[in-house]
């Protein structure tokens, strides 16, 4: 998507943006400025700095494009961006069909002014094979289901809040993420000293749960490549199909695991 940018561009991105965004920004060869996670004051400071620089060099300012990149729901931290404070209208939304739509691939949407340019210059669009029709059909059907049953969103939200509440108060683990986020992280309250040991400890918790019937995974990162490496954590993901008993069982199992292994 970032192929339309060139060297005279500034991109302001949240520092907790996921790896895919980081690589896209790197591929665009523009100047990247990171602002602190969800800190609008920091973003404003950066924009004001840019403004003063522009006033010193108005000719360059006229050809320098600026973009702000944020995530809707941050994968690495489980919280959302403060959209109303940020802007009044969005130019381009890029989304992933691989999570909620259980298909493969992604899409970009926005005004045709912006999107039609992608058709000739988006590298992933022009130089890559198209999506197999099977997966496109799966995504279409998933969207149809979402449109026909709008109450599943409320059901999901209720379940998220339930599990979020149930996981509070586990000794040794803290919940990171908004209460309505279906993907949250469980981080260690106190680190063991090194990242390696933290990872090993979390692995034991995960294995305990796996052996008792709850499948969990640790969040995986490429440690050397990330700009702001998040601390080691267990990724907990909720789906609308889980029953309340299953959610309660998961929470109690995690409590047990934490108690026996972390204390």
């Amino acid at each position, binding site marked *: 998507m970032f192929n*339309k940018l*060139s060297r005279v561009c500034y991109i302001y991105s949240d520092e907790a943006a*996921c*790896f*895919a965004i980081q*690589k896209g920004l*790197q*591929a665009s*060869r523009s100047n990247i400025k990171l602002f602190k996670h969800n800190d609008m004051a920091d973003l404003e400071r950066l924009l004001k700095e840019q403004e003063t620089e522009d006033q010193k060099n108005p000719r360059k*300012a*006229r*050809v*320098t*494009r*600026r973009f702000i990149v944020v995530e809707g729901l941050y994968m690495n931290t489980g919280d959302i961006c403060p959209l109303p404070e940020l802007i009044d209208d969005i130019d381009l939304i890029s989304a992933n069909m*691989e*999570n909620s*739509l*259980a*298909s*493969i691939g992604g899409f970009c949407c926005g*005004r*045709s*002014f*912006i999107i*039609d*340019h992608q*058709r*000739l*210059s988006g*590298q*992933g669009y*022009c*130089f*890559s*094979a198209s*999506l*197999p029709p*099977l*997966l496109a059909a*799966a995504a279409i059907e998933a969207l149809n289901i979402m449109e026909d049953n709008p109450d599943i969103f409320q059901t999901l939200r209720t379940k998220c809040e339930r599990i979020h509440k149930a996981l509070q108060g586990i000794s040794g683990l803290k919940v990171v993420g908004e209460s309505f986020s279906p993907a949250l992280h469980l981080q260690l309250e106190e680190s063991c000293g090194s990242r390696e040991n933290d990872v090993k400890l979390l692995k034991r918790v995960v294995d305990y749960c796996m052996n008792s019937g709850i*499948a969990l*995974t*640790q*969040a*995986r*990162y*490429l440690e050397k*490549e990330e700009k702001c490496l998040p601390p080691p954590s267990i*990724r907990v993901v909720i789906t609308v199909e889980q029953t309340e008993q299953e959610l309660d069982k998961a929470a109690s199992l995690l409590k047990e695991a934490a108690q026996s292994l972390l204390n």
Partner: protein
Amino acid sequence: MERPERPRANGCGGAHGALRNGFVRGPPGTQINHIVHNGGLYKRPFNEAFEETPMLVAVLTYVGYGVLTLFGYLRDFMRQWKIEKCQNATEREEQKDFVPLYQDFENFYNRNLYMRIRDSWNRPICSVPGAKVDMMERVSHDYNWTFTYTGRVIKDIINMGSYNYLGFAQKTGPCQEAAAKVLSQYGAGVCSTRQEMGNLDKHEELEKLVARFLGVESAMAYGMGFATNSMNIPALVGKGCLILSDELNHASLVLGARLSGATIRIFKHNNMQSLEKLLKDAIVHGQPRTRRPWKKILILVEGIYSMEGSIVRLPEVIALKKKYKSYLYLDEAHSIGALGPSGRGVVEYFGLSPEDVDVMMGTFTKSFGAAGGYIGGKKELIDYLRTYSHSAAYATSMSPPVVEQIITSVKCIMGEDGTTVGRARVQQLAENTRYFRRRLKEMGFIIYGNEDSPVVPLMLYMPAKIGAFGREMLKRNIGVVVVGFPATPIIESRARFCLSAAHTKEMLDTALKEINEVGDLLQLKYSRRRLVPLLDRPFDETTYEETED
């Protein structure tokens, strides 16, 4: 340069004599023979030709572009002064005082040249892209700014544009049945990455099978071919390494090389002297400022270059690689399944050992009728990639029915499904390729590339002929892909045919008849039937450019 008394073969790497790259020249006056022997490096003749653009055609092409540009300026002027209605999307009112999003020139080409012949691209098809395909008819009432569907479906168009080399794009048959079964068992999506919760037993089965197919120790599969290159090259090389990349490498290889942070130097397309000079310089001079030796030298080449139809000179590349101790990354996107007596790719085509290629990469999109890519090589390499590849850590794994399609098609090609269908298809493709190319050359078209490459570029040159060729062929029920700037140099626009094992001789004959007619109608038979020697380009100092990111 001395003139040889009699034909001589020449070895690679020491081409200081009269013969470049060892092609055999007969005595003066006879027809120049392209057969390359090269001191025993090649076990079979290597016939590749790129006939030079005729001068008149080049001049007329430039004139054509000049006229189009003038008209473009005129139309822009009229649009600006509101004499003509402006049809393309514009910025929002509130954003008018923002810095413009697109540079004017990019958009100029788009508005004034591409828009005129836009109906030749993005054509919607509505059936499986086999040997014949159905297309939805669309019309434009405002000169291609918008399209509407008429509702009619054009049926049974002979498909000369899909990458369907072995004919696995089918909606019935063993592959489809197996894929349907797996779909009902595993579903369509995986919803996780390979390192987290997305590693299925199907993926492991696929990887073992691919490793066996290629003859390597181990392999790893990814969901997207483009991402295989762009996300794994950065994991293999980094700062302090050198990448030697062919001039005409695919965008995914270029992106991967850039993202890695290594120094990139480009050698002329398939030119071994150019590559050798770069290697020598790299070893002798080392890194640019510090003069330290390079940590790693990686040569990036492709098996078949899809825009030129040329095949990489693999025996010479491997000889150079061994001499200068560098690594080789071979992208077999188009050549896997399509070359070689049993479809094992360009390595088998030249009779070489897969152990000589350090990283064998390929895609499943072309010959296997699926989507995705793979990397094969030594076990240590693949184990390293399982941990450090960007795709393994962050990208969703391949979809199970797609994996099953690949497994079934690979087994078919290898003959493990108990039939000889796979072998027959590989042979059919080779026959189709030879026949089609021979007939087109006889008709007098300029065809680029190697005799054995199933990608056949037919030169069009002039901008108007790009659109005309596409439309005329569609009228005659043949679907072709036409390519122009910026995918090719500005005067070298072409039509690109992709042959398939699913094409029968009757289909090819029909297609050839129509191409002949259109060729006469549009005056495309430019060939002067003068066989030009291979790569007779003088060796010059401007062989490489260095880019550092």
